[in-house]
């Protein structure tokens, strides 16, 4: 898939000119992705598990620009999310969470600037983003009847999904930028920051900082399962790490926690696209 092709559909100009239907907006996604995106937004991602498994690795080792564009899309979403979260007032009675969100927001804003600079002319404007998933969520308590506790739960859940997604997406693009050592290093330096964020957000939600099996964790909305598909993998480079010993470090839990998995450009882009309005 060419991510720029579908991203072009989300530039401000295109949005204004087309008043685009969802179908039109996803027109340049791969057919597999398109079907899911059109049918599934905002919910109904029940089929995503199988589909993601079926998806093949596209674009391996080829295209640093697409890799950076995917990164920029994810960072736009994160930047917007944390700014809106902090502006919403939902966090104001949770000083620890608010401090955490401010720190993360600072990083995501810097990442956007960095990626825009790296992409130059290949950068695109921030798309229009909808964190309510078509009105099904209200993380920023924009409706007067939304329980602030519910909004707080959603604001944490979405952050976890974005950060765990970011970790997998950057990891999945590492080989696509390895032809450029400086670029690879920068990508890795962002990747580990996303992982630090993920760990802390998970902790705020009462979870471990690391992922066990393919568990999305208690209280995570079902659609976020796409972020955790295949996390239960225990074989790396042909070595099944559960076979390396008999004690706790080699049990299923530890063996899956100790390694994060990748997501392809298609799979990560598909999840990101859920938040484009």
């Amino acid at each position: 898939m060419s991510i720029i092709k579908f991203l072009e559909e989300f530039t401000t100009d295109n949005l204004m000119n087309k008043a685009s239907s969802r179908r039109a907006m996803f027109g340049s996604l791969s057919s597999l992705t398109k079907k899911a995106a059109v049918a599934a937004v905002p919910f109904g991602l029940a089929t995503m598990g199988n589909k993601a498994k079926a998806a093949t690795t596209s674009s391996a080792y080829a295209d640093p620009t697409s890799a950076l564009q995917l990164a920029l899309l994810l960072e736009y979403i994160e930047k917007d999310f944390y700014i809106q979260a902090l502006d919403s007032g939902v966090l104001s009675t949770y000083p620890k969470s608010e401090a955490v969100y401010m720190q993360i927001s600072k990083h995501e804003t810097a990442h956007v600037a960095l990626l825009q600079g790296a992409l130059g002319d290949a950068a695109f404007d921030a798309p229009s983003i909808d964190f309510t998933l078509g009105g099904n969520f209200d993380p920023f308590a924009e409706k007067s009847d939304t329980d602030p506790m519910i909004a707080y739960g959603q604001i944490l859940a979405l952050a976890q999904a974005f950060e765990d997604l970011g970790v997998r997406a950057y990891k999945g693009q590492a080989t696509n930028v390895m032809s450029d050592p400086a670029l690879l290093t920068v990508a890795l330096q962002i990747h580990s920051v996303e992982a630090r964020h993920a760990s802390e957000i998970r902790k705020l939600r009462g979870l471990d900082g690391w992922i066990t099996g393919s568990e999305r964790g208690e209280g995570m909305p079902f659609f976020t399962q796409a972020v955790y598909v295949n996390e239960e993998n225990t074989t790396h480079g042909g070595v099944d790490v559960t076979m390396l010993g008999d004690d706790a470090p080699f049990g299923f839990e530890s063996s899956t926690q100790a390694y994060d998995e990748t997501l392809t450009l298609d799979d990560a882009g598909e999840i990101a696209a859920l938040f484009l309005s």
Partner: protein
Amino acid sequence: MKKQKITVTTANGRNRRKFLKVGGLALVGSGLLLACDDDEEMMGDDDGGMEGDDGGGDDGVFDLGGGDRGVLNYAYALEQLEAAFYTNVLNGTYWGGAGEMEKKILEDLYNHEVNHREFFKAALNATYSSELVLPANLEFDFSTVDFNDRDSVLGTARLLEDTGVSAYNGAGKIIETGAYLVIAGKIVSVEARHAAAIRSIIGGDMDDFTFFAGDDVVDPATGLDMALDPSAVIGAAGGFFITPFTANELP
């Protein structure tokens, strides 16, 4: 898996131990172990412990090598260090009496690092002949750590995890094979999750809720984590290594 041919005896020279201990984890100096290799006087007398020295080093000292092998050996050394550290943590009185949450986190970290260590051992031995693989059971000097003291344990854990993150981030560009880059990526993000978890505990003590990704490790202007070359990392962590090795082919 091939049988390990290399055996490493305890470094018995007081000089060597003293020499390698300098520096601790402070990010100063330039590669104590690298310096070690240049000093033939230092290594000349007591290098008899290693057999089958085809690892490229001088004087019977194992050299990590370059490229993929160099990075895998380097990662294996760091994972051995981390696993040995947490093994000691779980045998210390602080951990024994720690609160449930801290106890669980440190136990998880032990499990993960032991898993990583054995992964690199298996991956290296599946790919390279044994004389090209860093010996198992490196010896470490944790005399600067008080495993009965919470601050000492958590402070050292933080340094080791942050160092691990910066090491993997800096080593990525040396890796030649995409599959190894992906595996390094799978591990480094878990090291970063560890670092944040330990930092979160320490930050809580300090009432600094930004410490999980503090400005001291994530540049607030760029949002970038640390990335260090192997020479800088080995220089920083060299104080913990008793068993000497060199990294002559790594930057």
